[in-house]
């Protein structure tokens, strides 16, 4: 038609999206089957435009993350040091470090984990190993989805109503941890359920065939083969619990509480505590005259903790996938 020969390969090497077929075709154009029509060229142009626009959209979502992290680090640089981590805030939180908040967050995370991990893992075992395909299972799944979708501030109201007032725990680490535990339960249930379902049915059948009961099968075959997936879920729970603010604001976290520096057991179960996320909120909105670097430093420590914990989960998952034998 136009003299210039363009090629369209008849057989694309791999269907279903996981290749860069277009570039390969343009680069190697030696399988000439057809000459192109204007229609073909328009088609190809649309394809290139679509691809670039979509790439641009993806990058616009991804680049902010990197820029934001860099900017926060740059702003926080003046205060970041080990001292910042291990000293209490001083002078009305305008100087000093974040020790009390850091330790408080650890308490909240660990206690909420102790509650939600067993319940979540057992709930997932029920869903994956015991539940039949019936209305109860459907309702449970629906409840898990909805539990994950309840706004964090509504969890806070629940925590106030149920734990602080009804169970008379008062504003305490215990009440805040329990609120966090219920909020993060769906994370563990979803991840564990997925890990358990990934264990092939044949493994279980083999075990049943040698006379093992359901629980023996779960304990000796299903759990050992899915432990890394379960761990991933638990790690993700930690990251989620560490970052939440709204649920602990009214159930146990306070603006300021001095504790002895360097003592990892400085808080009691019924004490109120500081928390990193709450501390960031407080010093950036409620306290005037805080030097700029201090909130940035707090944000970096919080963000760093959460992202590192998530990376750990990702690395674990990749390692697990590379080792998978079936």
């Amino acid at each position, binding site marked *: 038609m136009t003299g210039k020969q363009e090629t369209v390969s008849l057989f*694309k090497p791999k*269907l*279903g*999206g*996981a290749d*860069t077929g*277009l570039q390969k075709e343009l680069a190697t154009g030696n399988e000439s089957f057809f000459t192109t029509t204007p229609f073909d060229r328009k*088609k190809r142009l649309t*394809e290139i435009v*679509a*691809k670039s*626009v*979509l790439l641009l*959209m*993806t990058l*616009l*979502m*991804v680049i*902010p*993350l990197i820029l934001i992290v860099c*900017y*926060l680090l740059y702003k926080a640089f003046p205060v970041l040091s080990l001292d910042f981590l291990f000293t209490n805030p001083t002078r009305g939180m305008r100087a000093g470090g974040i020790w009390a908040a850091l330790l408080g967050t650890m308490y909240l995370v660990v206690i909420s984990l102790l509650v939600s991990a067993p319940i979540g893992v*057992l*709930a997932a*075992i*029920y869903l994956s190993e*015991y539940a039949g395909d019936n209305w*109860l299972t459907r309702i*449970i799944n*629906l*409840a898990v*989805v*909805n*539990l994950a*979708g*309840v*706004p*964090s*501030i*509504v*969890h*806070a*109201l*629940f925590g*106030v*109503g*149920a734990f602080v007032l009804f169970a008379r725990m008062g504003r305490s680490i215990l009440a805040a941890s329990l609120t966090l535990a219920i909020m993060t339960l*769906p994370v563990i249930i979803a991840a564990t359920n997925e890990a358990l379902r990934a264990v092939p049915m044949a493994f279980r059948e083999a075990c049943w065939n040698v006379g093992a009961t359901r629980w023996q099968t779960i304990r000796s075959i299903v759990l050992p083969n899915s432990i890394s997936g379960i761990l991933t879920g638990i790690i993700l729970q930690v990251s989620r619990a560490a*970052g*939440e*603010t*709204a649920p602990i*604001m009214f159930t146990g976290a306070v603006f300021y509480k001095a504790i002895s520096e360097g003592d990892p057991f400085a808080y009691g179960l019924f004490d109120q505590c500081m928390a990193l*996320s709450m501390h960031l*909120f407080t010093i*950036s909105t409620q306290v005037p005259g805080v030097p700029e670097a201090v909130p*940035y430093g707090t*944000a970096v420590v*919080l963000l760093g903790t959460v992202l590192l914990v998530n990376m750990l989960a*990702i690395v674990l998952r990749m390692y697990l996938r590379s080792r998978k034998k079936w």
Partner: protein
Amino acid sequence: MINRHRLETLSEPVLEWVIRLCGISAIIFVFGIFFFVFREGADFLFRGLDLVEFFTSPEWYPTSVSHKRYGVLALIAGTASVTVLAMVIAVPFGLGAAIFVSEFCGPKLKETFKIIIELLAAIPSVVWGFIGLTIMNEMIIDLFNAPIGLTVLNGGIILALMSVPIIVSIGEDALKAVPDSYREAAEALGASRWQVIYRVLLPAAKNGLLAAVLLGVARAIGETMAVLMATGHAVKIPHSLLDSVRTLTATIAAELGEAPVHSDHYQVLFIIGVLLFSITFAVNLTADLVVKGIRQK
């Protein structure tokens, strides 16, 4: 050996009951949440709250000495404005990114993008709020010569960045769920990659993509700390993107600490909580039914 065996057979039924109990725990907790939040607000709801005024009046003066008024229309407008703006930004970008990651990426690149999107989803909301309060605030003041940068625009962009990861990951799942035979059939007819996406994949995955958008909406409505910090504190119906607003969630977070326990004001905040719970419950339920719809087909 025999003792151990016996112990195991005896303890197994107990264990199974514990597992069953944990299995239904999610149901218990969802009902528990509704019950306890409702319980704290029920007294005032049945005793004195004028529901018509509650939903139609934009006047929110819970601490006024002479005449307390509890109208949440302005708060609903606040929530709606930031949510709509967030979705206007997040839906095209989120679905675009989902399509790109699912259909145009090589395996390595795909893995990289998915990791970054997962990390984006993990950023705590208070950090997003802090970003809105500092970086975005300055940018908006500089760009628009606005007196204050804590506006609908600020909150909307922050919420968009927060809901995009959900839309991308669920949208990508929806696209992945379309059988490869559809793609093969379309390509065999000579369709280009884009034609396959536009004419085959999008119609086939539309329910899953709709569910992705709905879950993004639910996230945006329920988000608390980010909007509390990024949208300013003006209880009013916004007229432009550069107006400050306050959302339902932010109101609870800002006022619960100051309202005396069991006062009318305190109970109204719990009623707002019930309202929020109901909205997100409805949205999540719809999303779930939409997804179920595909599976049954």
